[in-house]
């Protein structure tokens, strides 16, 4: 027997959240995941998908500062919360030090997992500004990269840590 699901155009759910520091209101079909609402209803295609089953990690975003797989989060759960995607990493038109380091050190090859790895690394550095190689390995282990072999990613995170520490020292 066929069960007819609500269609995408039945945007009967609404939410207000902070997306990359900006308040947004969006209407969407109630079954949609945060990933789908970001990409399809809010036009934020920087966040990618590789399985939509919580296996590959490519859809990671920060929800209230913590990395989550946006394909496993229902959008209706996100009302009043704060979401950071790769589009929100830079500040004042400048790349985030992680983005600079990834660009310079070969940490992005095809670039498909890069948005997820960047935001996950940002969350790590918020908690561990002097993370060890092992802490970086563990933090990024939920995001698969098929191109790099991870090593240049680790090095880029480490280079960004130094840059951020320098920036913080100058700011003080």
């Amino acid at each position, binding site marked *: 027997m066929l069960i007819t699901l609500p269609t995408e155009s039945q945007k009967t759910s609404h939410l207000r959240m902070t997306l990359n520091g900006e308040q947004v209101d969006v209407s969407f079909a109630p079954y949609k995941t945060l990933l789908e609402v970001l990409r399809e209803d809010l036009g934020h295609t920087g966040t990618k998908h590789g399985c939509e089953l919580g296996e590959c990690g490519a859809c990671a975003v920060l929800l209230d500062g913590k990395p989550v797989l946006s394909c496993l989060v229902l959008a209706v759960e996100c009302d009043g919360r704060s979401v950071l995607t790769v589009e929100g990493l830079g500040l004042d038109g400048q790349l985030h030090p992680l983005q600079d380091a990834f660009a310079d050190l070969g940490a992005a090859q095809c670039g498909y997992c890069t948005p997820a790895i960047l935001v996950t690394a940002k969350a790590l550095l918020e908690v561990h500004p002097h993370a060890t190689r092992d802490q970086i390995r563990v933090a990024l282990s939920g995001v698969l990269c098929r191109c790099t*072999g991870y090593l240049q990613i680790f090095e880029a995170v480490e280079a960004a840590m130094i840059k951020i520490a320098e920036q913080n020292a100058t700011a003080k």
Partner: protein
Amino acid sequence: MPNHNDLPDGPANGSQANGEELRVIGVPRRRVDARAKVTGQTRFADDIFLPRMAHCKLLRSPHPHARIRNIDTSRALAHPGVYLVLTGKDLPIEYGILPVSQDEQALCSDHVRHVGDPLAAVVAREELTAFEALDLIDVEYEILATISDPQEALATPDPRIHDYGEEGNIHKRVALEFGDVEKSFVEADEIFEDTFFYQGSTHLPIEQHAAVAIKDPDGKLTIWSSTQTPHYLHRALAKVLNMPPAHIRVSATPNGGGFGGKSDPFNHEIVVAKAALLLDRPVKICLTREEVFYCHRGRHPVVMRFKTGVKKDGTITGMHLQTLIDGGAYGSYGVASTFYTGALQTTTYHIPRYRFEGCRTFTNKPPCGPKRGHGTVQPRFGQEVQLDKIAEKLKMDPADLRLRIVEAPNTVTANYLRLGTVNLSECIRRVVKSCDWKEKFRKLPEGRGVGIACSAYLTGAGLAIYWNKMPHSGVQLKLDRGGGVAIFCGATEIGQGSDDVLAGIVAEVLGIDTFDIRLFTGDTDLGPVDLGSYSSRVTIMAGNAALQAAERARELLAEAVAIRLEVPKERLRFADKHVFDSAATEKRVPFHEAVCLAEARFGTIGTVGSYTPPKSPALYKGGGVGPSPTYSYTAAVVEVAVNSVTGWITVPKIWIAHDVGRALNPPLVRGQVEGSVYMGLGEALMEEQEFRRLPKKLSHALVHKFPSILEYKSPTSLDMPEVATELVEEPDPRGPFGAKEVGQGPLLPIMPAVANAVYDAVGVRIDEVPITPEKIMKALAEKRAGRTPRFGPIDFPHVDWPAALRVPPPWEGGDGNAINDVPRHSKPRPEKDKVLSS
């Protein structure tokens, strides 16, 4: 203008572009597309959203092998929100990547050949609606017997999976002999016979295949797709849609990983193109991860047998290789893959006599095709593990043995592959030194071990997929009055850095910055043809084309500037965004002014360049697979720790040296090496495209064991060992600025080096891939029981081989032709001396 490609032995093309040190090439740089990638702005195919866009889903066969008795789409078509339902009768024309294997139909009309084979498509306003409507298509199947592996295919000629091929379910059978191999075994002091099995694996790009097609306002067709080969897709679309190619535009979006898995024209691409034309609205498809596993085109499972004769000093007298290949349900690149399983054995070590027999069978599984290292990975595993066994028997260090037998540069091998620079010895010496080999090999405590292996790989396939005499790559440059340079080229960015290769070469020659360049690539309308991102061909072919176009542009600018500055144009240098007199550097004009001067003198400034690989001396039938302008070389040492109680294997460190000719952008080259190491390690330890039969009380169908990323194990950031990468750089005159390939070769030595290291650690031979704890435990049990401490296939299955084409090697008076081939009257054979010396 003379074609510099006819002069493979001349000076390194443009290696002295400015008559002085290089400013761009070889300098670590941010790649040109890096900013887009780290800001999430790279537009992948599924990131394209267009007004009025409809969505497509495919109905896929749940049966591995069946006749389609009837398809009724009426209920699906009546479902609200459904615009269109297509079946095989809408797309009857067959296609396939190789001209000899036109065996695919975009939607099967009467015969499905593997679980996942598509037979109908629904296009609807919304993706979910399309998905729902798939359930409303009524199909009557007549179940056919399933052919699950090559042994079964050989034993079961009926039912045939395809009505072409050699016979029964044998797709392709080849036999080639270069010299009398039996005689070489008589001359040998020792003969080694070993059988190996290499399991299939898949590419697992993180980006799922996606495509969007539109009917252009003028009625033409445009398709954006995550394809590595837009030109070949263009040809397939023209054929199947029966449209003039001039009315089709294929734009390859940057691929979110390819690794060979996006190199075939795919059914879903053809379906959305047809639907967009019929509906006159954009149509998108994005495959689910499960569907990506059904697209496959990955590593062929191969059983292989090596018989190798050696002298006491390690010299190889001859080799006989047999391969039995599980092709899956379609031809794909399979004929080429079959030849590739025997093509490159002769490129690393001197093998004076060589016999190769290969057989590819059809089976009811997703089709296999080209995965990184295409067809050469499996026999390389067997060859390098057998060499480890040979070294042990001869009581030689396996690194020393290899150093003794490395093939010489600039030679023609027994099977007529013309080698370029060969720095394999240097690669071996580097890894032996950096890993402290002499202190480790056979000296580490029980449970720890090191293994060494080597390899070679093509720098671009010498022949196109279809026979033609045109260039393999073309580049157009447009120079504008503001000093900007636009590069137009069909080369396709799949993450490997092809855009950066083009920009780096043009920037070097014209003395500008790579960020002064705009790139229009992977688009069949915007740029000249490049055959695609496969066979490690882009750097050498598109790179040489870009070099030629840039040198022609520089010539025009130099002529105009020479007049303005009143200096001989030979004295002009292009650097730092200026053109200046090398003898008096204050005499200079900015680059943009140089463009204006040239435009005033010659009119609009645009140049072209192209590249055609040199002719191969391999003139025998089958000799089209294997030739390349030059080959890369790699040596690797892997260290393992094996727990003899659990069989668990960990890899603490890998040392690898790669002969790349010249690293155009060193961090990108390192990334290709380490990415290959990573992917090789996945194949060595865990990756398996494995199938199982459902229980008899269910359908007993042969299904993919785990079409999901969770169950298909691949290495994570926790599994990746430390890697010490060394690049060996002796510029090869055939490559742009001396560059050779790096994207595939470094994968090849990893699997055999792991196997050899496991033997060093616990004394058991695992003669198959992946090397899992279970297999180690079984081999350890054999060892404890006093039997052969080994896990692997016992026998090579019986295959009725055809009589071999006999091609005497160059040192036995051969001219590259077979002496017993049927005469090919229509094609006059080039004379020996002409080809061998060219």
